[in-house]
């Protein structure tokens, strides 16, 4: 193998190893992995089961909030959400019918919400304002109308 070939082999392997080390550290040490909650639920009995029998925004600790949310064609329940600036907000979500998605543009919050599965994502909103919440998984004829907002103040 030539000297130059050795060089690019070493450089390319190093790039891969460095990328994996950074992403691995983020995921396992800092808890920044992609949303991967494993809880399951009967999608036909969402309304009868806690916590989804009472969707809403709950203060669960100092500057900590929980948003228990159900997604269905073509709405988020609860609709208008309000949380204070800098609060840690955990979204606990499930779908009552088909596959939905949740995305808040301008943040890292972006995940699928599938029937039968409970999804959890935590997000801190450091900037006050109104954020758009939208479904980014095609869910039917009214998909484009499936959005709501979250007010941070």
């Amino acid at each position, binding site marked *: 193998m*030539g000297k*130059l*070939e050795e*060089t*690019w082999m070493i*450089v*390319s392997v190093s*790039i891969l190893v460095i*990328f994996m080390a*950074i992403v691995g550290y983020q995921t396992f040490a800092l808890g*920044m992995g992609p949303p991967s909650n494993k809880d399951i639920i009967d999608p036909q009995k969402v309304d009868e089961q806690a916590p989804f029998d009472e969707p809403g925004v709950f203060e669960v600790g100092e500057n900590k909030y929980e948003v228990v949310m159900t997604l269905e064609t073509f709405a988020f329940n609860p609709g208008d959400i309000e949380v204070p600036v800098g609060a840690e907000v955990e979204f606990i979500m499930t779908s009552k019918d088909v596959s939905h998605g949740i995305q808040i543009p*301008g*943040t*890292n919050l972006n995940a699928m919400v599938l029937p039968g599965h409970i999804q959890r994502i935590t997000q*801190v909103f450091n900037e006050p304002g109104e954020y758009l919440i939208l479904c980014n998984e095609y869910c039917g004829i009214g998909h484009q109308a499936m959005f709501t907002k979250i007010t941070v103040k």
Partner: protein
Amino acid sequence: MASAKKNTHQDHSAKGTIASVSIVAIVIVLMWIGVFSLYMARI
């Protein structure tokens, strides 16, 4: 014959190749840094 082939291969200059793979490497690294910074800015 086999050794002659090997020598021919060694005689080729790899400078053009390393220049092109380096450009690809820079593009990959810059894209990765871009996506990483975007993610960190939105935390």
